[in-house]
């Protein structure tokens, strides 16, 4: 990663927030993730295929 890219990343609070959000997914239970799958759009996409 270039210095410019690194600075851009740390200067953008949304990037840090996004990483925190992605980290929270890794702490979620399988059931939580699967619930989203069955409740909403991932299944809908599959049905439409």
């Amino acid at each position: 990663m270039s210095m410019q890219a690194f600075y851009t990343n740390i200067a953008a609070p949304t990037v840090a927030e996004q990483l925190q959000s992605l980290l929270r997914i890794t702490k979620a239970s399988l059931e939580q993730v699967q619930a989203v799958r069955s409740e909403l759009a991932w299944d809908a996409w599959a049905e439409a295929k």
Partner: protein
Amino acid sequence: MGTTYHAAVQLLLEQPAVTQWPLLQRTLKMADGKPPVAWDFPIAGCLAAGSQESAAIPAVAAITCAHIAIILIDDILDEDPRGEYHQLGAGRTANLATGLTSLGQQVLDRYPCAHPTLSATLYARLMGSTAYGQDLDVQNTHTEEGYWLVAKAKSSPYFSTALSLGGLYGGADAKLTAALGEFGALFGEVMQIHDDLNDCLAEPANVDWLQGRAPLPLLFAELAPHPQQQRFMELRSQVEDPAALREAQQILVRSGAISYCVNELITRQHKLEALIATLPLANPTPLHQILAHAIAPVEHLFASVGAAS
């Protein structure tokens, strides 16, 4: 499903190539009740370019033919138990797919837009690229580079062509048509990632697990140097056992495989948003709607785990 889709199927049913071929006729009549994924993308492209929905009918018809042909072949290659080839045999099914491919070309030719050569080229590229992507896919290369190559070749052209063909029929010039194609191609990658997430989290184990395939979350868990990589590889071949599948799926969550896929979705969401902002669209709403629908599962997942989206 709108009346435009029904009108497109009716247009196909009127074609001489269909009236003389009962199997083709039956296939299209069945399709009338079950529109393909993104059947309305040509409408979105047409509206975005500033025209009316009805102008997209030939493009919807061609895309419908392309989709049915692609699925017929894909099911043979995937040995999908739902595949039509179980009833017809592989030979007749492949032949039917050829007939449908040709029918799509004939409709574009018979009901031309302002740029008939470009529409014919886009359609030919769709079928050619998808065939290449399907061939790459069955070779099942377990590499990051191979994954994206297949996604770009197999998944993107359909969405790209559906949107750009619709744009052409809505009066878009070559430059806007190409930009709509770029939007559709990126969206195709989004669709592929969604599809992979869906398949990996299914219970019982989906064919992606059972046939040793490498959808994106499984590829991440195989290749990324996370602490449970070895355990994941052991479980990979035992997923017919529900307990092994569950443990493997838990590793997908904990290792960051799901997060990685979500990050790839967000990256593309941002690119798509930036692209919409730069396009000289008469009506950007259809593209915003496509994007909102595509990103809804991510927002739902973030909300579910108490994270900001």
